[in-house]
């Protein structure tokens, strides 16, 4: 399998921070992987994703996406990525249709292609009947589904999901996970997924990496990771590696 994301000794230290948020992190994500990035609060997941998306530069090290870096080819790197933030990054007073049409245009899409794509995704995720309602009137699960569609409109090679199922009902969670699995299987879409739902991560991810204190603690294929640690689940592995101590700042 070819490498889509290659992280080489990446560190990030914020000014005035006592320690690095990400510390000499190296890992690769292959094309077609569903890659789970797990870790306690403050482990450095958000910082890592922000650097991967090109929001701010690394202090040291390199991030290659399809062999390109944000430093030299930011536009091409961003074209490869689709992001689904943890927050509902939608305009509450616009309808789902209006939100997705706007975001589609911002990806450089347009015309009947975009309209069809928006309609198709809304239909797949069961929102066709409500697409002309304002987001403010949607339930949490409906908002999450629209939030997901917004990251998929330009058919990204790498979809970054930051806790995509937090606070949603079982039905919506099921619809989201099934749709993502289908995209991975049928379109070969690579997925980078972060979550605190470890059971969901175990079921969904082909590969998992656990980071803590900005450092990569372990990584590998999900099943191998469980067996090599003599555990029965990813949750056991996680607690074994990161401990049970609270991570309050």
């Amino acid at each position, binding site marked *: 399998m070819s490498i889509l994301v290659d992280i080489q000794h990446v560190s990030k230290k914020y000014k005035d921070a006592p320690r690095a948020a990400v510390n000499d992190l190296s890992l690769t994500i292959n094309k077609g992987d569903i890659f789970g990035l797990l870790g306690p609060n403050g482990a450095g997941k958000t910082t890592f994703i922000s650097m991967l998306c090109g929001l701010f530069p690394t202090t040291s090290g390199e991030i290659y996406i399809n062999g390109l870096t944000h430093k030299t080819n930011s536009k091409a790197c961003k074209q490869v990525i689709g992001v689904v933030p943890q927050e509902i*990054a939608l305009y509450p007073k616009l309808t789902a249709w209006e939100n997705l049409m706007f*975001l589609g245009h911002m*990806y450089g899409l347009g015309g009947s292609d975009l309209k069809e794509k928006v309609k198709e995704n809304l239909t797949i995720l069961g929102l066709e009947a409500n697409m002309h309602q304002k987001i403010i009137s949607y339930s949490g699960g409906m908002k999450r589904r629209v939030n997901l569609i917004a990251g998929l409109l330009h058919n990204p090679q790498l979809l970054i999901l930051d806790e995509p199922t937090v606070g949603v009902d079982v039905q919506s969670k099921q619809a989201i996970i099934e749709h993502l699995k289908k995209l991975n299987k049928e379109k070969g879409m690579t997925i980078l997924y972060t979550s605190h739902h470890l059971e969901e991560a175990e079921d969904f991810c082909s590969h998992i990496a656990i980071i803590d204190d900005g450092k990569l603690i372990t990584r590998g294929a999900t099943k191998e990771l469980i067996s090599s640690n003599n555990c029965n689940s990813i949750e056991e592995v996680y607690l074994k590696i990161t401990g049970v101590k609270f991570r309050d700042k």
Partner: protein
Amino acid sequence: MKLLYSIYKEYKVLTRDRAGLAITFIMPTVLILIITLIQDTTFRSVNEASVPLLIVDRDNDSLSIALEKSLINSKFFVITKKQMTDEETKTEIAKGTYFIGVIIPENTSKKLREKSGARVTKLLNSFSGDSTETAVDTNKLNVQLFFDPITKKSFKTTVSNSFERIISQIEMQSMMSALNEKMQESFPLAKPSPLEITPIVNLKEDYASYNNSSIIPNSVQHNVPAWTLFAMFFICIPLAGNIIKERDDGSAFRLLTMPGSYMIVILGKMLTYVIVSLIQFALMLCVGVFVLPMMGMPELNIGNSLPVLFLVAFASGLAATGFGLLVGTIATSHDQASLFGAVFVIILAAIGGIWVPTFVMPEVMKKISVISPLNWGLEAFYGIFLRNFGLKEIFPEVAKLLAFFAASLGGAYLYQKYKRLK
């Protein structure tokens, strides 16, 4: 296409925010209507004062008639004539019913004629070599003035000087009449033409203005542009709030991960808010031209150059949106942006002459006022409304507004860069 869709999105978001629309359009309209009406009397007192004046005329002769006529012609006083004692007159003035009271004692005209005659006789006798001393009464005639105790010294001096000037003219006329009579006595067969006693030197006064414009500033001409500018700059609050909301709800994060989209979204936002500020401006002009005259206010004279007027509005709109962008970039929460934005705009408005016009400010505040972008906009509007300025004359103010816009953008960019690299 991206830009157009970004503007379309902002338009949709704005038009569905009823509270925001009310703040944007209804607030300045109400402010203009209320404050123009409230300040109308104050502006009139600056321009065309109508001072209530009481005349107690016990003379009822040439002097009192001439004095009253001159006072009426000055158009400075609202005159009431009554008969009352000195004490009663004083009480009326002290109560504030009248600003000024004038008492012309009995026989003042008669005594003036007698004194004038005596002085002329003395003068003519000295010409003919008559050394006989003609007795001249040196006692002065008194015309009593009472002023309201709250009257400012400068105003009191102005009024006293006006009275002295009028009375001097009357005295001169009386002297000339006496001279005329004496000459006729000396040359009974002569038929001289009457002596012209109208003033020879005329003091010509006018407001200094360009292009023969002679518009006097009034409440409408101050308040319409002033409060329109205030509303334009108040746009910084919804704009900053919009930026912070996008940052808080992850929209900015998503947009920043899209290739080259965030700058277009920001540009779309700014253009939308500039368009909103131009609509505000057009609406406020309509209030000044059509609505205020219906309420008995003077009609807003919008000068001769509509394109120049809208250029100033455009530059002001840019300055306001640039400031909003800066506030939205620096503030960490919506509350912070609202508070900081509102307080800062109010301070800029206060020192910029929006509430109290700069021409009535103390010298030190006049000097400080030039640092406010609202003052630059206001001065440019004054130039167009009151002095019929064109592009050349208002260019310095427009340039300052554009420089403020550029500085705000630069500040926002540098702060963003600093945060990104932090």
